[in-house]
């Protein structure tokens, strides 16, 4: 099921912040490497090129293929270390310090929580729904399982505010239930201080008088003065004050300050300003847990791709996350499973394939995404019981069984039949999660659901043996020659060419078999194969949108305060992170990404980004130009085109070509970049590049999806730890709020044109 678009039915709170990245996503066609590929090399600019790569070109090639693109000075560093040694370092990521990235990731403490810790602090919306309408819940006989609100004041504040939000925002149906719940509420909140400002009356009046535009409008606003009083407090006092509020007050404050609803606004920023990351997360989550979890999942992944020194690990993590695709919009439980899923994949990204496969097969994320947690053997205890009592949903589900073979291991022509799909699905019955619908769910094998008896998989008899059956089958699949070929081919398409030479794939597959699936060794074989260095493949791979965006950020040395505008840009460019709905993930071949619409978005992105028009992303071209000099980057030498502007501009352009492209641009590109009109371009592009496709949302009232200005779960501006103190912070924020002007507008415009040029679209 490829290129499904749209997610328009995101329910409830998941929609709140992830939606922008997910909606209107077209995941596109043409995975047919075999089909599309023939054109690649023959039509690319390298058609007739036969001269072997120079040493400099080899370095650039390695950086383009094995990292998310060079940063200023990277080529010089690799040259200093030596290409082979650098590659070996990258193969062993634990040998490389990643302190700078780690510090950035300190902004996301929620992602480091264990599932149990997360469960306590950030409830699922389902849980909140049940608590909000307890009476209805009780009617359905589920009262006994109703979760308890945690006791610590911060978690309690999060839960209670969310419960309150649920009651207020859920329409007429909610209002009816609200009344019923009101009595229970009174006793529950008896200890809380009385509401101030007659907010309750105000609210009910509003409820009658207004035609609500969306659900969030049901929340009464707070007076400006009140908000300002709160904002004026010292951070710790401010936080304490928020915790001490009633749920109703808190919700009004969040709404008035528009915290975490995707807008950039001074009040929201000031409200969160000076908070520790934990405090910021807590206050943001008070509206909805997925205003924290989902955006942080996206943001942290992108920051890693941009800033990790362990670039090959990041590239391979991305490769496997795509291979073992998970769609973040599957349901409301999925975002919370992704931090663990990403860690599993990263840990094994350069390890053993079977271990990696097993890590995905035993992940809650995969069990949920491909429905296996629901699958029940017809003759298992649970299945028999279900049949006996007329249970509806107790039987086999083939989804994971099929994709495991078609997409994860053997490949679609890997020699399995429908019968094998059914048998593998039986083998895997019982593989699932322990407590669905609750945070803290972990992988569990449930014997009661497991189909008893022997199975026949690909001609092998699998003896009845519970969980071990699945392990046998996964071992069989992981070590099959078809898998070795399938994985090797896919890697070669990612790293070498849309149409890799069969001999290269054979060599890699042989290494795969010889080393029992050691990914490092397979990559080493690829790196040392002449096909990797063939002049025909040099600069011939079209960048995917992710590669395009990350390489642009890296080459510009941009400082990313909030990566959310970039994650939204990826959605606009057709490749949102964790946004591929079909299990195929995205394709690596150029036909997938080459179209008029895509090209237009790339050009607009390049200018918007380069000239600092993406909030939260700061590009300082003056610094990049200075820095390049110190790093010993050689400007591209060329004959100055006649009629060129001034020598200063030419000098800058020469440097920029070297920094951005790493090789001389074409004459036409250069003439355009040097044209005097370049300065006006960016303003125009800013109008035409919408962050994330315009899309209205229904239902949950988070109207945060369209318009270039809106973003971020945390009001965009986050200070890094080291400048959290003092007046510098204030000044930095003010500067940010006014939109930083480019330090060197001329350089920014020229760089933008280079980033949008045909030359930069390839790696």
């Amino acid at each position: 099921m490829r290129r499904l678009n749209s997610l328009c039915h995101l329910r409830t709170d998941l929609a709140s912040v992830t939606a922008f990245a997910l909606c209107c996503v077209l995941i596109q066609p043409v995975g047919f490497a075999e089909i599309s590929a023939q054109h690649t090399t023959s039509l690319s600019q390298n058609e007739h090129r036969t001269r072997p790569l120079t040493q400099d070109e080899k370095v650039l090639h390695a950086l383009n293929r094995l990292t998310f693109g060079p940063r200023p000075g990277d080529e010089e560093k690799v040259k200093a270390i030596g290409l082979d040694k650098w590659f070996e370092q990258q193969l062993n990521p634990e040998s490389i310090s990643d302190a700078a990235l780690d510090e950035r990731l300190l902004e996301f403490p929620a992602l480091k929580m264990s599932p149990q810790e997360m469960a306590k602090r950030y409830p699922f919306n389902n849980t909140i729904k049940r608590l909000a309408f307890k009476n209805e819940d009780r009617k359905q006989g589920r009262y006994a399982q109703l979760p308890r609100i945690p006791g610590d004041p911060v978690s309690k504040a999060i839960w209670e505010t969310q419960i309150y939000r649920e009651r207020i925002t859920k329409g007429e149906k909610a209002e009816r239930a609200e009344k019923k719940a009101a009595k229970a509420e009174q006793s529950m909140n008896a200890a809380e201080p009385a509401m101030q400002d007659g907010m309750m009356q105000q609210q009910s009046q509003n409820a009658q008088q207004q035609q609500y535009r969306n659900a969030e409008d049901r929340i009464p606003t707070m007076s400006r003065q009140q908000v300002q009083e709160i904002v004026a407090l010292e951070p710790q006092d401010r936080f304490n004050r928020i915790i001490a509020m009633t749920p109703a007050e808190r919700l009004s404050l969040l709404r008035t300050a528009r915290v975490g609803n995707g807008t950039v606004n001074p009040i929201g920023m000031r409200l969160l300003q000076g908070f520790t990351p934990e405090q910021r997360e807590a206050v943001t989550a008070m509206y909805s847990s997925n205003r924290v979890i989902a955006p942080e999942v996206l943001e942290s992944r992108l920051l890693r791709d941009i800033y990790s020194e362990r670039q090959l690990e990041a590239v391979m993590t991305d490769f496997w996350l795509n291979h073992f695709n998970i769609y973040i919009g599957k349901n409301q439980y999925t975002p919370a499973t992704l931090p663990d899923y990403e860690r599993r994949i990263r840990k094994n990204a350069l390890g053993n394939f079977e271990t990696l496969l097993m890590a995905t097969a035993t992940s809650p994320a995969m069990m949920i995404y491909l429905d296996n947690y629901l699958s029940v053997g017809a003759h298992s205890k649970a299945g028999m019981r279900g049949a006996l009592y007329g249970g509806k949903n107790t039987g086999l589900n083939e989804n994971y069984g099929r994709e495991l073979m078609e997409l994860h291991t053997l490949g679609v022509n890997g020699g399995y039949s429908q019968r094998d799909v059914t048998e593998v699905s039986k083998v895997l019955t019982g593989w699932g999660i322990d407590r669905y619908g609750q945070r803290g769910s972990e992988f569990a094998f449930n014997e009661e659901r497991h189909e008893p008896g022997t199975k026949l998989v690909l001609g092998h008899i699998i003896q009845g043996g519970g969980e071990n059956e699945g392990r046998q089958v996964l071992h069989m699949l992981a070590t099959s020659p078809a898998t070795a070929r399938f994985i090797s081919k896919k890697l070669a398409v990612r790293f070498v060419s849309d149409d890799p030479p069969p001999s290269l794939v054979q060599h890699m597959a042989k290494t795969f078999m010889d080393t029992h699936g050691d990914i490092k060794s397979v990559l080493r074989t690829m790196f040392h194969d002449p096909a990797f260095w063939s002049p025909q493949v040099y600069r011939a791979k079209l960048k995917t949108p992710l590669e395009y965006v990350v390489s642009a950020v890296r080459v510009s040395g941009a400082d990313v305060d909030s990566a959310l505008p970039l994650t939204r840009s990826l959605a606009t460019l057709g490749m949102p992170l964790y946004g591929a709905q079909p299990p195929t993930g995205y394709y690596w071949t150029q036909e997938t990404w080459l179209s008029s619409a895509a090209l237009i978005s790339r050009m607009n992105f390049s200018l918007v980004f380069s000239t600092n028009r993406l909030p939260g992303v700061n590009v300082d071209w003056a610094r990049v130009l200075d820095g390049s000099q110190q790093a010993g980057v050689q400007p591209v030498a060329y004959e100055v085109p006649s009629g060129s502007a001034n020598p200063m501009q030419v000098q800058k352009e020469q440097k920029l070509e070297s920094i951005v492209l790493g090789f001389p641009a074409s004459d036409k590109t250069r003439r355009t970049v040097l044209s005097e009109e370049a300065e006006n371009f960016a303003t125009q592009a800013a109008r035409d590049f919408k962050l994330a496709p315009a899309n209205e949302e229904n239902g949950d009232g988070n109207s945060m999806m369209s318009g270039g200005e809106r973003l971020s779960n945390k009001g965009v501006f986050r200070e890094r730890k080291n400048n959290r103190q003092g007046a510098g912070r204030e000044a930095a924020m003010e500067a940010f709020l006014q939109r930083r002007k480019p330090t060197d507008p001329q350089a920014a415009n020229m760089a933008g044109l280079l980033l949008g040029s045909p030359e930069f679209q390839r790696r």
Partner: protein
Amino acid sequence: MAITRRAVMKNGAMALVGTSAIPSFLTRAVMAEATTAAANHKKLVVLFQRGAADGLNIVVPHAEQNYYQMRPSIAIKQNEVIDLDGHFGLHPALAPFKPLWDQGHLAIVHACGSPDITRSHFDAQDYMESGTPGLKSTQDGWLNRALQVEKIDPKLATAFRAIALGTQVPRTLAGSVPAIAISNVNDFAVGARQKNAASVSSAFQEMYAESGDAMLHGTGQETFEAVKMLKATDPAHYKPAEGVVYPNADFGNKLKQVAQLLKANLGVEAAFTDIGDWDTHQAQGSTQGRLSNRLKEFSESIAAFWKDMGPEAENITIVTMSEFGRTARQNGTGGTDHGHGNVMFVIGGKVKGGKVYGKWPGLANEQLYEGRDLAVTTDFRQVLGEAAYKTLGAQNMERVFPSGHITPDKFLGIV
């Protein structure tokens, strides 16, 4: 294919206009003569339901006893379907289709599908879009080939002969006839909204015009020509016809834009878009739920599109398709797994609607394909072929569906 896909109007009349907007009269004049379909204003709109829609719950064989036995919790009850002919009935969420059926504009083909037995989404979609089931080496899509059939002067071809709403040109439209993918008509510009002399668009255009990179050069050329043409139609101010409301969701927005492009006299002959999330392995629901929500958006969008096109709807044929059907029996998790035969809708001014076409194979256990799925009695290419033949004038069926043995005598007589 991309090198030939580039806009070929370079030397045509429109290129003379240069960077400024192309007057729409000129566009119209050029298009009026280019092809038969354009001359007759005929348009073929293809809609793909990605993920394998559950045809048995879409057009429900409510007279089949076994249907209810196989789907104890997800079947649509006899008193819930919108009855069509005593044997079949529409899912209640397809209510917007009923007027079209009554007016004779909507035809249904049931037990329709691919001769290839694959149950892989990937392969099945690929085969349906290439139009060559079982043959992976096909490089272009059936709809593109249908447009190739008629030889036209490349100078007169418009960049908009084939359009797709989405970020990429779909497989269906891949091929030597230029096809344009548009994700949003209003954003389809590079800084071009400004009337400023210094146009970003032309700057980039120059870069791409002389790029030695053939693929990027081709796509770039195509892109900038299309940008100019579209701009001339003032897309930002589009208003659907009086009283027409499209569902405010992805598919509705796409169809609205298809309508917009069709009405703009850009020379569109074939349009393609898709709607996802039909892969209802679990909890697909019956009259309410996941499938129902999908069908509601699907049918409301199409009905709005039809109404929006007004008198022009007469010249339009809409065909819907999905890669395969789903298991006749519900699975263990309140959903259905990958199956075989499915249902297609054909809607149009010239359609002989109000009828369910195709030979019905039955749903008794022994009638099921491989004991589990609705059998296929009509090759999907018979339906697509007829639509392309009669709407686009693509008479060379061997070209459209190579080795498909689709000949006009195999058409069902729908259009």
